[in-house]
């Protein structure tokens, strides 16, 4: 990669009409392939399995560990009646932004230092948003993109895939949970009880892969609290369910309805493949999530070469009925939809949004939920 011109990543998905170029981009294709590689590397592998960690990996984990120590040191700000978002989170984020380039410089080998200008964006974006004090699957994706970039510049190779998931990503999860619970971060763009989890998605993908071939655990097993507790250390999936059991009260089928439904799937293999489809449909293809994504030379918005030349019609913005061309088959209730646009013709006020008026107000923290920013009009 020497001689490559790195650049500070930029946002490219400004409105729903930018979604199609995103589906066709190198970034989309390579990121998805990367996730599949990670996924396949941990099929049937326990989280606690004996895997070799290079000194570089240990340094990485230490670096994430130091972030976690910062969290402990930050005193909480007194809250009165706010349920979400302790402002003290901003101290963490401020320090992260300030020290991230140096942290990366310390762990990365010298030949990767040029790339830090790109890497640092994904790294700092991984730990939530300081304005809204929220965290969601978009932030999680940033960390995976960060790992993807590291693999692309050769810091990690394909042999490291297991370690990336079970050690580094797992450690990242601990840090994020620590942030979420300590600062009461809000689930970003929450669809409430209809999302798979308030905060994470990827560990459900990787974790279900880990459980493929399990002799004593079927998907139905994770409804039992004691089973989950006993096996949480073996799979990221069960670890996440365990975390939900610890942080939420009330009936499981109400607060985690998606997981309750998925427990009826007969095999982990089906769960795993379903998770991938759902990740594409509910995260990668959702404008509210991907509008915040950054693109640079590594995670590139350029059109993928593998996409066949298409005529003008295919580059038309996706309509209600139009499936994104490269989407896997999706049916029924979660079929591709862009709620804002699907409804913009039906909502009178949506057509009179002055661009930026509300978004510019989003520069400070909010106590509770938000008025979602107006979807950009073409």
């Amino acid at each position, binding site marked *: 990669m020497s001689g490559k011109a790195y650049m500070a990543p930029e946002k490219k998905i400004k409105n729903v009409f930018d979604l199609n170029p995103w589906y066709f981009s190198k970034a989309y294709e390579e990121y998805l392939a990367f996730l599949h590689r990670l996924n396949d590397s941990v099929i049937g592998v326990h989280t606690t399995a004996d895997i070799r960690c290079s000194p570089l990996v240990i340094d990485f984990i230490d670096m994430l560990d130091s972030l976690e120590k910062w969290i402990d040191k930050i005193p909480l700000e007194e809250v009165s009646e706010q349920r979400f978002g302790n402002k003290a989170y901003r101290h963490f984020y401020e320090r992260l932004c300030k020290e991230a380039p140096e942290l990366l410089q310390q762990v990365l080998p010298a030949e990767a230092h040029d790339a830090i200008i790109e890497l640092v964006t994904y790294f700092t974006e991984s730990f939530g948003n300081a304005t809204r004090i929220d965290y969601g699957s978009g932030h999680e994706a940033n960390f995976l993109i960060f790992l993807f970039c590291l693999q692309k510049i050769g810091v990690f190779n394909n042999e490291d895939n297991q370690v990336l998931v079970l050690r580094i990503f797992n450690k990242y999860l601990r840090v994020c949970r620590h942030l979420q619970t300590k600062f009461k971060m809000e689930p970003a763009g929450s669809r*409430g009880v209809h999302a798979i989890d308030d905060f994470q998605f990827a560990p459900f993908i990787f974790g279900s892969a880990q459980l493929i071939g399990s002799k004593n655990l079927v998907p139905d097993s994770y409804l039992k609290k004691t089973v989950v507790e006993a096996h949480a250390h073996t799979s990221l999936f069960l670890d996440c369910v365990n975390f939900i059991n610890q942080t939420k*009260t009330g009936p499981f089928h109400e607060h985690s309805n998606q997981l309750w439904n998925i427990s009826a799937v007969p095999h982990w293999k089906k769960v795993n493949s*379903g998770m991938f489809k759902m990740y594409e449909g509910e995260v990668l293809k959702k404008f509210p999530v991907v509008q915040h994504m950054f693109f640079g030379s590594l995670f590139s918005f350029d059109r993928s070469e593998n996409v066949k030349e298409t005529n003008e019609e295919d580059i038309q913005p996706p309509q209600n009925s139009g499936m994104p061309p490269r989407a896997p088959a*999706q049916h029924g209730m979660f079929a591709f939809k862009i709620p804002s646009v699907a409804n913009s013709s*039906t*909502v009178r006020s949506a057509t009179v949004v002055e661009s930026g008026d509300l978004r510019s107000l989003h520069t400070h*923290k909010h106590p509770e939920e938000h008025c979602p920013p107006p979807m950009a009009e073409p």
Partner: protein
Amino acid sequence: MIDRTPENVLRVSVCDEGELEKTTSHLIGTRKIEPEQWITWASECKYLPESDAVALCATLIDRLSLEANVVPVSSPVTICGDIHGQFYDLLELFKTGGTVPNTKYVFMGDYVDRGHYSLETVTLLFCLLLKYPNHITLLRGNHESRRISNVYGFYDECQNKYGHGNVHKWFCKVFDVLPIGALIDDSVICVHGGLSPDIRTIDSLMLLDRAQEVPNKGPLCDIMWSDPDDDVEDWVISQRGAGFVFGARVTEEFLLNNNLSLLCRSHQLVDEGFKYMFNEKLATVWSAPNYCYRCGNAAAVFEIDGNSRSTKYFNAVPDGSREKPDRVVAPYFL
């Protein structure tokens, strides 16, 4: 016979009237209006068949369109805050405060989103409104809008339960015509969020064109989005992205100008369920216990009877007394 001359009917044509009417008009009038039957179903945490739901909505739209923006209510009355799809906790609320029509209720909005049973919750409340219009008043909250309920759960729920978005559209059309305020004994004003710098009098509140999607700004938006704050003098832009944060001075000014004694609102979680601010000039009522299945908070209803005011508290219903639904696997996993 209801007088439906143009002056008396609010403009309801908010959305793609034509399309929606075309696709579902055959459903209106094909079913009889059966409030008793519907209430029985809804009380068992069931939602209505599509044609009944549409008939319910269409009837309510006709009726609510004739209501003023701020409806007068006489005490004794029980005031409730956010419900957020917590169906079983709503039943607990009725146990605590009394059943309709034995108790007269004002609900201050946010019936849907967040909780698991938005559809069943709003169905029950709408059925009660249909049967007992003089004993229950439903105000509009910021979640009673397309933009918010698309994101926070209600849309997904309708989509899952009916298999399409039509019923959600109908419910949203009812939301468009829900009143935005209630005036109790000419002395207590109830709204969902709070005040607006553009609204100085109840009269100006009456003049707003409310039959529309909740806008991104302006008085109609502020009424449903604003929050009070002890540290604020008068007006500060709200960091929620809509509405304002308002202080004690403007609250007292508003009450004085309109000869009122109390501003009652919900919109913000209060751990105890009820909280006075600004020297008992403003009250926040919260009626969703253990909000989002994690907050562990209590809930309350606020009773007003002439000059006496009292608060009743209740907690989340234990897991055992809730029905367990069937598991429905999303198509992704088939």
